[in-house]
């Protein structure tokens, strides 16, 4: 049995299938970072640290004439998002009901996907993780509310990347507000703004919950690394007569190898 303890949950195979499918469907559209950065793994729950290939001097070796260094590693972070499911709903699912109330699971999925995006794009100082946006040394470009100007802003960002020797294709992560504006906008002649931006980038435009503003980044690989320990999974915590308490969980590290491979877009 794994640490997720799923076998201890009073949930049938039908119930687990329902929960896993619902979680997958809610998570996949919202996991913006995974659509733009390098992904490696999953390496398993026991995987604790990412090798940085660096070492630091330790003052005073353990013996005369002996030098000492300590390897520097980046520890994986664990994210957990709790939720509960009514046992009556699970029982109805076993009977074949299709309108099962999984609102808490949906909220938990939104929370953990947003948290993952926030770590990747904005960083998390407590975990020693820089974000794509915060790490970028390029001058920030203000998106503003006028969508008609977005192609110009994105083109300037792409030019800045090219000038820094960063090849494409490029992708664009956009926070929800900016993304909605892009979707709703057709430029003169009815040509969708979305298509225009894609042509400039040569890559995708990604809806990125929890991202403030956005970022243009290269997709060439080797610049932004998401290392997955345990991939997103549902685990069991406890149950009572009326509900089962579960959680969504993952472990990962994120590092920026080439800070100049992205340009931040301010809201």
């Amino acid at each position, binding site marked *: 049995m794994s*640490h*997720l303890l799923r076998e201890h949950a009073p949930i049938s195979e039908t119930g687990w299938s329902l929960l896993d499918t619902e979680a997958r469907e809610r998570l996949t559209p919202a996991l913006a970072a995974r659509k733009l950065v390098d992904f490696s793994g999953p390496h398993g729950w026991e995987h604790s640290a990412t090798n940085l290939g660096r070492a630091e001097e330790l003052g005073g070796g353990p013996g005369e004439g002996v030098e000492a260094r300590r390897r520097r590693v980046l520890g994986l972070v664990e994210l957990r998002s709790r939720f509960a499911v009514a046992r009556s709903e699970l029982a109805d699912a076993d009977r074949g009901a299709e309108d099962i109330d999984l609102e808490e699971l949906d909220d938990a999925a939104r929370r953990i996907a947003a948290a993952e995006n926030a770590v990747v794009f904005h960083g998390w100082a407590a975990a020693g993780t820089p974000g794509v946006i915060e790490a970028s040394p390029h001058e920030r470009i203000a998106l503003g509310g006028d969508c008609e100007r977005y192609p110009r802003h994105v083109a300037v960002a792409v030019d800045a990347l090219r000038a820094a020797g960063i090849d494409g294709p490029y992708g664009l992560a956009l926070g929800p507000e900016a993304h909605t504006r892009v979707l709703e906008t057709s430029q003169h002649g009815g040509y969708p703004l979305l298509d225009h931006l894609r042509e400039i980038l040569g890559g995708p435009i990604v809806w990125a919950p929890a991202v403030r503003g956005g970022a243009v980044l290269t997709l060439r690989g080797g610049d932004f690394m998401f290392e997955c320990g345990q991939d997103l*999974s549902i685990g069991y915590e406890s149950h009572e007569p009326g509900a089962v308490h579960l959680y969504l969980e993952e472990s990962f590290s994120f590092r920026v190898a080439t800070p100049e491979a992205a340009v931040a877009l301010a809201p």
Partner: protein
Amino acid sequence: MGFDQYHEPPEELPAETRTFARLCASLTEEAEAIGWYEQRMAIEPDRQARAIMRDAQGEEFKHFCMDLEFLLRRTSLWREIAEGILFQEGDIVEHGEEAEEEATEGEAARGAPLAGSESLGIGGLRGAPG
């Protein structure tokens, strides 16, 4: 045009399995080409012709490695076994047996997105709809 890379009816296979099968077929073709160039070079007396073939074979090495890396990224159990065998000194068969045993035993206890695992199997989403 043949569709020999599919062992099952293609219309019944998910898109990711069809992509996986195409890359497996490509991997096979690159390995065949590497072997062909090796044979040609072995019998070719002209030095410049051999140099051209060596250069071409280098391309096939690259293609083979890219195909393999793609497949390993999509198949964590395969990747884990490969990590125990590739670029290791010592007895290849021993490494193979050990890597297989460790990978299959450990896989069940982790969140690897393989049959029988408990992860949601989401993994990387490059190429997924925005």
